[in-house]
Structures are given as C-alpha cells and as structure tokens.
C-alpha cells in the first residue's frame, strides 16, 4: 500500500508556498540588483565571456548543492561531498592514466565507487543512529586522508582529448558542466516536486517517527539519498578533472560549505522538511554573482570570505524571520478555529 503523504490542509500548503515564493522573488531581485549594479559601475559583467566565467566558477559546487538539497530536506547533511569530489577526480585519473582504461569504463567505475561511498554513509547513519554531521565528517576526514595518501600530494594529469570534452567541451555553445547542471537540476527538480518517492523526503524531514508510522521505509530512503548526493559529487569531480586537466587532492576543499550555503540561501530549512531545487539553483546563482562582483570590482578578493559568511548569516536570519511570521499566521488561524469550536460547543450545551 502506498504511504499516505501530502495530506496537509490545502490552505496551509498554499501559505507555505506563498512565503517560499516571496523568498525566491526577493533572492532573485537581490541577485539581479547585484548583477546590474556591478555592470553599471564596472562594466564588462554582462558579456558572454564573463557570464561563462561566472557560471563555471561555481558549477561544481552547484552540482553538489543539488544532491545536498535532497539530504537537507530529509533532515540530514552531507559534509563528505568535497572529499568524494576530489576522490572521483583522483580515481578517474588513475584509472585512465595509470591503469589505461578507456574513458567510459573509467567514468562508470568511478561513479559506481562514489555511489558505494554514499551507500556506506547512509548505512552508517542509519545503523549507528548518530547525527549525519558526525558520520559524514568521519568520511570527509578519512577520504581526504586517503586522497592525499594515494597521490602523495602530487597531481595526476595527461588526459585524452575525449575526456577533456567533459570539462571544457561545448554543447550548443554552452560548457558541458553547465549543461549537465541545468539538465540535472531540471530532472531532479521535476522529480522532487512530483514523484512519490521524493515527496517522502519532506515527511521524513518533518519528523522521522510520524514518517515511519505512516509506512515510509525511512532507512531505505535515507540511504538512497546519500547515494544520490555522493554520485552527484562524483560526477562533478569527473568533470572537474577534465576541466582542470589534472586531479589533485586539494581540489574542492571547503566545497561542502559552499554547497550547504547555497542550499541555505535558497531557503531550505537546515532542520529538514523544506527546500526546493529551484531555491537551491537561485542560491547557487546568488553566490556565483556575489563572487563575480568581487572579481570584477577588483576589491581585494580576500573580502570574499567575509562577505559570503555574512551573506549566509543574513540569508538564514531572513528565512528564519519569514518562517516565524508564517508560524504566527498559522497560530492565529488555529486560535480562530479553536474559538469557533468553543463557541459552537457552548451553543450546543446551552
């Protein structure tokens, strides 16, 4: 029997959607304002070359952020994506350059291995019953050490032409990683909004016990979500190796934090239960535009860390405030209903 989900009252859902919509429009407006502002003051922003640089700058973090969205909605977090990213770079490079495997075989083996790492993450989270932060941090530290050790800190290069296409080749005039990001975001966005399996994530994020009681196989869903996240990180890693022309254990360091920031800026609740792919995409674009504004304005790029930290805090604070206002509205509705019931029962008893 299919689990019964999505039976919130229609009014409540539309109220939630309305606040989300306000948030997205606000975020989009701010992004646009920054983009136009930098164009106005410094110029050369809205050129094809700069837009490509802008997009390529955060595309790999963006792909990780897509997977992170699913994890965050389910109430978890995946800190290990950055190390999986670098691991995929190294593995695919080793398979091609040192083992001499053909490109497709190397890619498939790498993706399967990354999926396996995700499965291990998910399994440990489910089996040990500890917060995902701890487990995925363990994986992050372990895998980063492994990356360093198996390469001795050296980078691996010497890829074939065909492989390099995955990083810098163009499809319809757009870089392949960006095409990959757009297609993946569309597919996952539609699935997340409509498919029964992915709708379960919102129930799990809202509360695991009720989710279990309503017949959702919580453990299975969670493991699959971490597999998805690791696979996307692996795919990003493969494309990054092709893009940079080399695999290095230090690539993607702290990318997990950028991915989480994009998800949080995109309006997802880090406690779980809410978030959309559309929001995350807006969050990624926002971070990319802010970064680009720093580069073009030639302000000391050292400030970038400061501002992106402040941005993260402001974004979370704002979404917290809108949530709270929404909560008050819901409370008022509930209070009104209670009053109604109270008066009606009083009428009956009289």
């Amino acid at each position, binding site marked *: 029997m299919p689990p019964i989900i999505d039976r919130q009252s229609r009014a409540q859902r539309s109220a939630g959607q309305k606040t989300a919509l306000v948030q997205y429009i606000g975020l989009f407006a701010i992004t646009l304002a920054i983009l136009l502002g930098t164009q106005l003051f410094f110029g050369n922003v809205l050129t094809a070359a700069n837009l490509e640089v802008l997009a390529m700058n955060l595309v790999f973090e963006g792909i990780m952020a897509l997977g992170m969205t699913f994890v965050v909605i389910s109430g978890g977090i995946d800190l290990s994506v950055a190390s999986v990213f670098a691991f995929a770079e190294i593995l695919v490079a080793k398979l091609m350059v040192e083992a001499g495997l053909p490109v497709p075989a190397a890619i498939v083996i790498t993706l399967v291995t990354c999926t396996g790492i995700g499965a291990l993450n998910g399994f440990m989270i489910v089996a040990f019953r500890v917060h995902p932060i701890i487990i995925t941090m363990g994986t992050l*530290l372990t*895998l980063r050490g*492994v990356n360093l050790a198996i390469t001795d800190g050296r980078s691996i290069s010497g890829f074939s032409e065909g492989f390099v296409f995955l990083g810098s080749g163009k499809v319809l005039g757009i870089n392949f990683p960006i095409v990959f990001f757009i297609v993946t975001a569309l597919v996952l966005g539609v699935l997340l909004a409509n498919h029964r399996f992915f709708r379960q994530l919102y129930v799990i994020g809202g509360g695991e016990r009720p989710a279990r009681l309503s017949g959702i196989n919580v453990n299975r869903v969670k493991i699959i979500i971490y597999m998805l996240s690791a696979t996307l990180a692996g795919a990003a890693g493969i494309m990054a190796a092709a893009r940079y022309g080399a695999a290095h254990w230090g690539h993607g360091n702290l990318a997990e934090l950028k991915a989480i920031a994009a998800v949080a800026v995109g309006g997802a609740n880090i*406690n779980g239960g809410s978030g959309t792919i559309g929001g995350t995409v807006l969050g990624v674009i926002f971070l990319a535009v802010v970064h680009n504004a720093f580069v073009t304005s030639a302000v000391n790029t050292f400030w970038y860390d400061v501002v992106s930290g402040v941005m993260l805090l402001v974004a*979370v604070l704002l979404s917290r405030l809108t949530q709270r206002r929404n909560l008050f509205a819901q409370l008022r509705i509930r209070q009104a209903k209670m009053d109604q019931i109270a008066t009606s029962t009083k009428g009956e008893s009289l």
Partner: protein
Amino acid sequence: MNSSETSMVHRFVSTREALLLLINVAIFAFLAIMRPEAFASWTNLKAVLSLMTYDLLLAMAMTVVLIVRGIDLSVGSVLALTSVTMALLMRDGVPVIPAVFAGLAVALACGLINGLLIAKAGILPFLVTLGMMSVARGLATVLTTGQYISFPRAERWFTQFGRFEFRLQIGDSFYGIPLPLLIVLAVILLFGLLLNNLPLLSRLFYVGESPEAAKLSGIRVDRHLIASYLIAAAFVWFAAVLMTSATRIGYANYGIGAELRALAAAIVGGASISGGSGSIVGTFLGVLMLALIGNGFILMNGNPNWQQATVGIVLIAAVAFDAVRRYRTGW
C-alpha cells in the same frame, strides 16, 4: 577484596574514560615496544605533548558548546583572527598586555555574536558558526593580506614565554618540561573541577539535556547558551596567545581544519552532538589518543599522509562502538 570494592572497580572500568585510558596505554605500550628509541625519547614525547596543547584547548572549547547541544565550527578561524589581531598590534608597538587583552576582546566578540545568533535569533549553531568560520578567516586574511606578521618590537618575555621550559634533573639526564603545557593542564584540571561542581557551570548539562525542561525549572537558557560560547571563545583566545607566543608570528592560516580535529576528539571523549554529555577527562584522553596515533604513524614508517585519515577512522570507530554498546544495553 570485598564486594563493594569490586563494584567500584567494575564501575570505574566500565566508564568511557577508563576505556580510553586503557586504549591510550595500549597505544603507548605498543609504540614504546616497537620503537623504543624513537618513541620513548623525551624529545619525541615532548613534541607530541607540545603540539597537543593547542588541540587540547580547542577541544575543550568544543566540549563546552557540545554540552549545551551546540557546535562551534569557528574555533580554528577565531584562533587565527585573534592571533593576527595581537600580532598586528604588537608589531605597531602596542605593549604586550593591552595587545593580548585586545585579542581577548576580539575572541569574546566572536563568541558573543555566535551566542546571540544562536540563543536569541534561534538559528542552528551549525550554520551560525559556519558563517563565523568564513567571516573570521576572511577578516584575518584581509588584515594581513595573507602575510606572516612578526612583531620584533614586542617585549621579550612574551616571545620567550611560549617556549619556556623547566629543566628537571633526574639522575644524570635533564628533562625540559614546557611551561605552556603545564599551564594548559592546570587550566583544564581547574575547569574540569568547576564544570562538575560550580552550579553555574554544571547547569550547562541540564540546558543541553533538555532546554525545555531547563527553562521550565527556571534556568535562563539563553544566558547559559551565550555563556558557553563565551567560555569557548576564551579557550580559543588562550590557544591563540600560546601559539602566537611560541611561533613568534601571527598568521591568517592558523588552525585550518582544527575545528574538525577538536570535534572528533570531543566526540571520541564522550560528548554528544545531541547535548547533555561530555567530559573534560574524556576529551583530554581523546586528544591524547589522536596525537599518539598520529605520532605512531610517522614513527612506524607509515606514510605520514595517512595520518589525516586516521582521525576520521577513529571518529567512525568511536561512534560505531557507542552504537554497539547501545544495542547491547537494549536502549
């Protein structure tokens, strides 16, 4: 041995601290037997212990916030920002004492912002301190433009203090005992005692165990949350002072990745991300264990690059061990 004594011994042996102590002793014995000259030399042990002092202080900071159901990812960055602030002031001729207190003010300001955003605005500690991590590291880099900051004009006692050693003579050989290590051990011991006996601090456990229940029983939860982030900041400041003094340099890249090591050590030592637990002795033993394993890796001619992986593996092993124990006790 009578029965009450056996039960006491049994209770001691079954605690986490005893287990950690045993593991530490086992690692120590293993290394001492396998590499008697290299490991058991005072020079090596001193190096292990000296490197440990900073991690120890940061792990203490992490333990305090873990107790109140928080997390502080900004410890490493605030360490760098504090160190850079002090070094810049001393470079420009500010005397040591005011510079050091300015560093304290910076660290406490970071802690206060963390605490306010967590307690008053109700944002998740993970996100708040993630933002602070980025902001503090960024500010440190902006202030120094990524350069080392040396401070030749500072009074000599400050630069010597971090490297001062007591010379202890036993038989014919001299042993140098680093002063910072002694101070840190004393501070930790004192803090451990206060944490369990001073009502103000022991209430932190109630706050972490159940904020709602603590609130209902009249504890001001907000203030305790903020206080714990301030205490953490003070520990970070202390680490920054020792590090700046020992290296004679302020640097924006100090403490990169230190937050994860500190978190791992605290979790291994028995703190939980869901709050209400954590022990100073446990955290101390956790830091010691990670330090010994790291040192052992190098001495056993292992690839030193694997050292980072061991931290992660130890963390996962500790968590798995807890899970097995929970299943067995039927929790």
